[in-house]
């Protein structure tokens, strides 16, 4: 079903999600920046904010 839909629908605009999925560099950006912020940076900031023993 998809095959025919694809060849017949050449003139249709390509759906937004498909454009993201078809672009490896958007995926690369998402896949690196999300964990860099939510895991690495957030994590390192938590360690940095542990008070130093007197």
């Amino acid at each position: 079903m998809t095959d025919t839909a694809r060849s017949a629908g050449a003139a249709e605009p390509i759906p937004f999600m498909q454009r993201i999925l078809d672009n490896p560099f958007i995926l690369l950006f998402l896949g690196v920046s999300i964990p860099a912020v939510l895991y690495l940076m957030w994590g390192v900031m938590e360690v940095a904010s542990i008070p130093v023993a007197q």
Partner: protein
Amino acid sequence: MSASANAEFRTCPETGLKVHLPAEKLIKVNAVTAVIFLAVGGLFGLLVALTRWPAVHLLPADLFYLALTAHGANVLLFWIIFFEMAVLYFASALLLNSRLATPAWGWVGYWLMLVGAVLANIAVLQGDSTVMFTSYVPMKAAPHFYLGLIVFAVGALIGVFVFFATLVVAKDENTYEGSVPLVTFGAITAAVIAVFTIVSGAIILIPTFLWSIGLIGYIDPLVYKVVWWGMGHSSQQINVSAHVAVWYAIAALVLGAKPLSEKVSRVAFLFYILFLQLASAHHLLAEPGMSEGWKVFNTSYAMYLAVLGSMIHGLTVPGSIEAAQREKGYTHGAFEWLRKAPWGNPAFAGMFLSLVMFGFLGGISGVVMGTEQLNLLMHNTLYVPGHFHGTVVAGTTLAFMAVTYLLVPLIFRRGLVLNKMAQWQPYLFAIGVTGISLFMMGAGTLGVARRHWDMTFSDAVVSVSYPAGAFLMMGLNGVFAVLATLGGIFYIVVVVASILYGPKLGDKAAPKPAPAAAPRPAAIASYGSAGTLKLPGTAILVTVFFVAFVLYYYVNWKYLAALWPMR
């Protein structure tokens, strides 16, 4: 394209795909190198398991820890990542009918990886780098241990860039239409995660190297753990993405199976890209320095979305096989499609075992252990290696072994020899790995520590006693380790013998009943869904999985409640 460029291609007689010869050569050399590191690392694994077998207790303490370090590095890093390079080149140049972007850089990457891996091995074998593959500071290894890992990682990063560049080349030169095939999409997922993995590794290993040669005074142990696990955990997610891609590839090559829904499978991979790496935090659940918020966000909310991705693949891979088999007429009852599947074909058998075991052994235990409260039950016990031998050995390693049985005829152009041995290999290895995985988990549940030479802690001030069952499990673990090793040796013997002495296939297709044939080329290298959801067998399998999952999950909460009785 010029004539000289065309001379660099051959046409595959089995799949009709255009094969770029320089890409093929890189695939071969990376795959062979991978297998050599598996052989080395696997033997160290056997030594470790024989030492942890109380009645054998093979190695003295210092050699035990050395062997454990060598085992972890050789199998987890070198075997897996060399093989993944082969998968990346295969999924880009070959499946896209394209040339590999810059074979020369592919070779630079390969040599750096090889030099790095050898250097790290030398450091470990010299005996002054017994720091386990995690190399937590302030334990200090010899500088060339870290240097080896860094050089290896740089090489791997170059390989990943060659992969991305090949995607660009294929698009520019219009070697395919529309979206890339699903297997390539899985490889893109693996490559994306690889970039984050390697960057994290560089951020932490370069300073650690400088510290080992005295240029930096201090590395904070907790920062080290946070960043190191950005690499250590994410690298496992490269494996998951790659072996899921391999499952789809084998199903397509052996049975002509098409994904049930391209969209759904791709979104499942997208979940990996977005969320899987955050779960790195599950390695730090027991760290007092990290906040609840950080732990819970990264390991619950985010990780469950990634797990959802795996569950989707766990549904659609068997589903696509069922759909393909039913189309061939195996429609009786819920399971004729499965009974009449090509169980004698080691590629199929290995792939299906990998799928089932990854889910039941690795997947369920991973979610249990990744739950903050439950993690306390088994943190740093043998449960942990029990779990990840279910993921990275039963899942990734077995899947990679399985696909090798297709690569030998397709890429090396040799028929398989020792067919009986090849047929038994996936079963033998699977039985062995199931044993080591379950018995290590069992011993861990009873409290046996991981990474410990002396399970009785005989020289400890406060004595520790285990139930007799713990000793029994460690013995059984040793027995099954021997079986797993035999399975590993079978694999290596079959592969090496076939590459060296297998009948040359030339430009003929492989003889049909041989476990090599690739009848439906289109499915692996094209876009398209199976377009059916009437799959009673898969529905039953998935239900069984969920019931097992839920029961086991609650059993563990029950254990936890028993530790801290609520009154």
